[in-house]
């Protein structure tokens, strides 16, 4: 009998199935429509805008929609697709075959990550088209003098923003995968993942504040907190892009490197935890 070896081809099959299953879900379509609606409605909401130029406001609003709905999709889709295999007992059938649990985890991750790439890509393109359309209108009619130096919006950076957000959603997918690997219900995984998302967004407060704490045990606890959770504010480059600043190559590379490290770590942790799970 030949020994079963780790197979990227099997991961690919699981990833493809996961992606197709995810795309067919009503939840994905629903989120896409809502997110598109929000991005396009920035044209309506700009009438309420006091503090910022129109293009900045639209960009800000679009980035907000991508982050919010992308995060929801990353958590809910991952948990649903993971638990659907367990609740429908298909996981038992799959894992009874010569498939490693690590292949199952990596396949699931890649499938959801691909889904998140499609979502983020769609939203980024729509936002860019909207910005291009408004910028052209402003250039030609309202304020041509402001565009003497050329277009204001750095479209390349908007796509960089899309890539960075996709990587952040992929980390979130990895986190949800770790949570799902030891939890018993879909709902528990979703709630706990949202709590972790919140902590990751506020991690930077602990990172900056621990040194100011006077009580040593609290200081240590806050320091632990700042080290255990990834810093999601690092991916918050939308403000700079919306303000018309470009993102330096080194900064972009560091953010991407940071994301890739955490994606690998959370996937390995999910494998570690899932191996100990009884199905």
């Amino acid at each position: 009998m030949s020994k079963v070896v780790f197979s990227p081809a099997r991961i690919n099959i699981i990833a493809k199935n996961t992606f197709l299953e995810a795309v067919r879900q009503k939840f994905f379509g629903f989120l896409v429509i809502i997110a598109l609606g929000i991005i396009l409605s920035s044209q309506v909401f700009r009438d309420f805008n006091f503090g910022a130029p129109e293009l900045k406001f639209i960009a800000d609003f679009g980035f907000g929609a991508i982050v919010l709905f992308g995060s929801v999709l990353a958590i809910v889709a991952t948990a649903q697709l993971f638990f659907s295999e367990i609740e429908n007992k298909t996981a038992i059938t799959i894992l009874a075959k010569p498939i490693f649990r690590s292949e199952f985890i990596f396949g699931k991750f890649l499938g959801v990550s691909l889904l998140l790439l499609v979502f983020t890509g769609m939203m980024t393109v729509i936002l860019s088209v909207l910005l291009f359309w408004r910028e052209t209108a402003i250039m030609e009619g309202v304020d041509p003098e402001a565009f003497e130096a050329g277009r204001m919006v750095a479209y390349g950076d908007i796509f960089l923003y899309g890539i960075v957000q996709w990587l952040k959603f992929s980390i979130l997918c990895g986190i949800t995968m770790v949570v799902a690997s030891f939890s018993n219900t879909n709902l528990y995984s979703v709630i706990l993942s949202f709590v972790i998302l919140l902590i990751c967004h506020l991690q930077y407060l602990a990172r900056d504040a621990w040194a100011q704490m006077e009580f040593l045990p609290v200081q240590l606890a806050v320091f632990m907190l700042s080290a255990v959770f990834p810093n999601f504010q690092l991916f918050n480059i939308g403000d700079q892009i919306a303000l018309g600043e470009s993102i330096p190559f080194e900064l972009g590379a560091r953010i991407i490197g940071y994301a890739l490290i955490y994606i690998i770590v959370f996937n390995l942790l999910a494998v570690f935890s899932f191996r100990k799970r009884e199905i």
Partner: protein
Amino acid sequence: MNWKALVVIFVVLFVVGLAVRPVEGPAWDELREREPSLRLADLEDALGQGVTVGLLGGFRAIVADLLWIRTNVIWEQQETAVIPATETMIRLVTTIDPRPVYFWLNGARMIAYDMSVWRVREAGDYGNIPDAAVRRYHDEQAETAIRLLERAREFHPDRPEILIEIANIYLRRMENEEKAAEYYRIAAEMEGAPPYAARIHAEILRRMGEYEQAYEWLKELYATLDPGNPAHQKQVVLGRIRELEDTLDVPLIQRFQP
């Protein structure tokens, strides 16, 4: 739940968190340098500012805009009963989105110019109450507005409009010409400052009797002005230089030669 596995996960994440600091640290420092709302000086700031920035993300702008509309609805009642609510709303809006200077300037104007009038009116109105009471109401509201604008400077250290607004409040509400002159000077020396800031600084110096200082300031200013730019008012500045030369009895031979 396997507690041993959970402990291993935490330990691994802790070690990874420390190991990635060399990658994350410089990027985070640069990002925070570029984004004022991520620069939190103390814990008090962190709890208010940080949480809203962290949670609202890209929707900060629209949430702040809608709350600004609400602030204006409250402010339109124009009575002392709504002062705490209006001040709270202004603080809330500027906490949620500190980026637009518009909120800081208009919030400070509401506090300094409108609320002081509401308080005087409620106490019996101008002419009916002692000047000292009017002075007190004006000063108290002006100080609150200046505190707000000083906070705005932390987020916008390079915006002269904020310093000009502080100077305006010192001049118009507190009648403190010395402080007003100082803030107009700081604003005038900043890049992108409107040319009138430098002229007002000189005018206040003149009103304070600091003729020499005003004269020297205007002579230096004149050399920097563009004759083709109507906002620079080069002829007006020259006229003021001549007036000061008359006041200071500068001999004809020593007078400023443009």
